[in-house]
């Protein structure tokens, strides 16, 4: 069913100007083909009687139909290339196209992960170069590149901590996680076999140091903190925290999702961090791709470095070598296992390295400073109309709650959906959970001052409408997007997860 009869009755086609409806490939299918492979005779002698008997049921389209289908779908998506995407915690910054071009060089893109190592020295050198940048920026002893995403990197870090504790002969089970943490933190700690113990936030939006200290003890394996934290604030007592965590014999894990605020300014290694994952798709400008692929290398302190998972990359007189099994590991290395097949998101590594080489330390430092400046500029621009739960300058994200709006009968969701009609992707909403109706705005360093001014002006106009009781813009918004609000309850109650004829 298209919108023809229910929504867009004003045109015969059901389309409106540049807005096209698009059926599923299975509804377009007419057994066409967009490739020209020849027929091959198959005698079945090597198939052991396992030849497929029935049809699969795939839809096939010619090349022009395929191109049109996906181009039309693409136009139903918002994207950072099209407009500001102030999604707090997600870091939607510009994705340089040079990165894409470099990732497609045959010496990176057309090399096999198990090709003889002498034939892949360029790809290994690329990984080594990226590893050097990541270690130097974080001040850490080692890096494991293989984790495929941030949460996967968190897991690698927590498993390294587990292995280090086992090596010490200790069975510490408790992991302290602030209640403002990303959902992946408690999920990862639990997945790694630890018991999650929540640490409350203090009134200033930061970890309550006394509360955390009180929870430390001989059964605590690690503290997991995000810094800057999910409220967009730097944990200013971090040196005290790391000292106390270490004094209690525990490790200090830092969620590096917000590293983009401090890259080139301060090294996590100097703050006493033992493990931290880096989201290459956030800080290092690789594209989010509609939800992946990401990459989550994890940097490790000298205490955790011996437990880094396979593979290990070593340099021996100018040649690089991957160590892929425990048996080959150098003396002192005690890899805890393997996070995935092969060596990680190599294509993403190229993109991140291209970004770093382009930016240089001066550019990385300026980008962090600009991201922080942009967030503060937005915060100041809205602080007379929206309530900021925590005082003072923020880092790379401006956090507001819905208190001021609620008085006028408008909530965070209403404002977010009205922003869609204004041509913006909404900010992150209802996260962090510690703030009622949270709105987390991360403009990033990629927005010009003019763009920030315009965003602030639109937000102010919407809030003015809310305050004046002009609620038409909010009721049932969005009105101008490819779809109105979608019925998520129906989707979950009777899940339809695939097309059926």
């Amino acid at each position: 069913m298209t919108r023809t009869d229910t929504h867009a009755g004003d045109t015969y086609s059901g389309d409106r100007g540049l807005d096209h409806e698009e059926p599923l490939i299975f509804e377009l299918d007419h057994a066409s083909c967009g490739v020209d492979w020849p027929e091959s005779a198959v005698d079945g002698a090597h198939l052991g009687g396992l030849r497929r008997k029935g049809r699969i049921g795939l839809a096939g389209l010619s090349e022009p139909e395929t191109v049109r289908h996906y181009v039309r779908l693409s136009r139903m998506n918002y994207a950072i290339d099209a407009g500001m995407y102030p999604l707090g915690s997600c870091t939607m910054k510009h994705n340089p196209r040079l990165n894409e071009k470099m990732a497609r060089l045959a010496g990176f893109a057309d090399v096999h992960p198990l090709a003889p190592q002498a034939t892949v020295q360029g790809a290994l050198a690329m990984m080594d170069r990226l590893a050097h940048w990541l270690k130097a920026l974080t001040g850490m002893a080692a890096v494991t590149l293989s984790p495929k995403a941030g949460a996967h990197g968190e897991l690698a870090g927590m498993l390294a901590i587990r292995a280090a504790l086992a090596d010490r002969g200790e069975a510490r089970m408790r992991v302290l996680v602030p209640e403002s943490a990303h959902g992946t933190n408690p999920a990862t700690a639990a997945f790694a076999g630890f018991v999650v113990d929540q640490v409350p936030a203090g009134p200033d939006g930061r970890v309550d140091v006394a509360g955390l200290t009180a929870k430390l003890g001989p059964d605590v394996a690690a503290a997991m903190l995000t810094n800057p934290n999910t409220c967009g604030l730097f944990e200013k007592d971090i040196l005290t925290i790391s000292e106390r965590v270490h004094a209690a014999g525990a490790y200090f894990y830092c969620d590096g999702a917000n590293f983009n605020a401090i890259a080139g300014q301060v090294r996590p290694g100097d703050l006493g961090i033992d493990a931290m994952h880096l989201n290459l798709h956030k800080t290092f400008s690789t594209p989010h791709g509609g939800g992946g692929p990401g990459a989550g290398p994890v940097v490790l302190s000298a205490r955790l470095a011996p437990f880094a998972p396979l593979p290990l990359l070593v340099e021996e007189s100018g040649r690089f070598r991957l160590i892929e099994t425990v048996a080959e590991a150098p003396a002192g290395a005690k890899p805890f296992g393997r996070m995935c097949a092969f060596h990680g998101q190599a294509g993403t590594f190229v993109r991140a390295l291209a970004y770093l080489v382009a930016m240089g330390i001066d550019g990385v430092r300026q980008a962090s400073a600009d991201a922080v400046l942009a967030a503060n500029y937005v915060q100041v621009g809205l602080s007379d109309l929206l309530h900021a739960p925590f005082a003072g300058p923020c880092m790379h994200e401006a956090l507001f709650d819905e208190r001021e709006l609620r008085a006028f009968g408008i909530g965070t969701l209403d404002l977010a959906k009205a922003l869609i009609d204004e041509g913006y992707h909404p900010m992150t909403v209802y996260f962090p959970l510690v703030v009622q109706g949270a709105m987390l705005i991360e403009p990033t360093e990629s927005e010009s001052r003019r763009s920030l001014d315009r965003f602030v002006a639109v937000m102010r106009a919407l809030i003015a409408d809310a305050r004046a009781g002009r609620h038409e813009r909010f009721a049932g918004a969005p009105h101008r997007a490819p779809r109105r609000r979608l019925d998520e309850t129906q989707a979950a109650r009777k899940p339809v997860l695939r097309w059926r004829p």
Partner: protein
Amino acid sequence: MRYLPQTETDRAAMLAAVGAAGQGDLYADVPAEARIPPEAFGLPVGLGEMAVERALTALAARSHPAGAGPFFCGAGAYRHHVPASVDHLIQRSEFLTSYTPYQPEISQGTLQYLFEFQTQVALLTGMEIANASMYDGSTAAAEAVLMALRLTKRRKVLLDGALHPHYAATIATLAGRHGDIVRVRNDIAAGLDETVAAVVVQTPDVFGALRDLSLLAEAAHAKGALLIAVVTEVVSLGLIESPGAMGADIVAGEGQSLGSGLSFGGPYVGLLAAREAFVRQMPGRLVGQTVDADGARGFVLTLVAREQHIRREKATSNICTNSGLCALAFSIHLTLLGETGFARLAALNHARAVTAAERLTAIPGVGLVTPTFFNEFTLALPKPAAAAVERLAGAGILAGVPASRLFPGAVEMENRLIVAVTETVVDDDIAALEAALREALT
């Protein structure tokens, strides 16, 4: 710096607006002793676009690309021809630079292609449902094992000896705390009893052999265990019976062959398909169909109550992202192929592999270890395979993956060579490999 739009005038105006004297003031919360000047990092300053391109091109030139000569490596990553329109379409800004579709009204493009992807994966694997993709095949296999542990509430998992060793290691690392992972060298059915949650079998297996799963599925089900099938070469499903048709309960796959290049091992795209009854134990993202306020069909992320951002420490998995863009490439490639093109591609792969196997086993002393195969087979050489591979690589021929790379120290693997032959291999490549191998073995 060209990626940063702010001029010094802009920065000055913004600093004045926020009431700060300099950008450093905004870092007042960072302990002063930890703040360091840029020189302290020991890293170079930025470069213009041309210089970056020159530096990375020089690095890339130190690799020997697969396309530069005869190429026969597989073992979990395959070199296929990807139509030009695939790479063009996935670079559309609206696909490349969008985030996870949390705001469905402005994310219907991503949501619809994921719904189509889920349908394609379910059809290919012969299963009822599939999710919106996983990181890669190995992590999908580990998640399949975790699913089986939750579903059966049992602890033991049997891994077939011909499962890709990287997959076995990944499963052991990710699921080893949740269950007892046992690698079985011989008859996996013999190990089945009422304590077994699942058996994990790869087909075609790591040596390329086709595995009939039907009897094993029956045996597993008789003991209340689940059969997890692993597929690392999805193109095989164009010619070979699907795991679902052979009785698999969960299928974990690597989708790299469709749409994604070799890219030195990633990013790839994990496939996870299962019976519909298991949906609430499925990890990762799921896209479901629904309607909007006007009654128009639309798509949303659904059953989110399983996921970490809602359930936190009680989530089915800690997974946050999927591999959306690679799933898109997979889906576009498969749409271009369609039923006919996909079947032809699979038949072509098999025919090429049969030709290569016949030519190579004609070399004195070389035997075929895998009597059944799709597009990859294992040879027994009269000499250690690793040395032969190194020698041929020196001559620009990438002969395959020596089994010793995957099973180091296993004496019986020393002389074995795993050879993959896809549609990208031409007759001259096979002739070159045959001649060079013949010479290396004499």
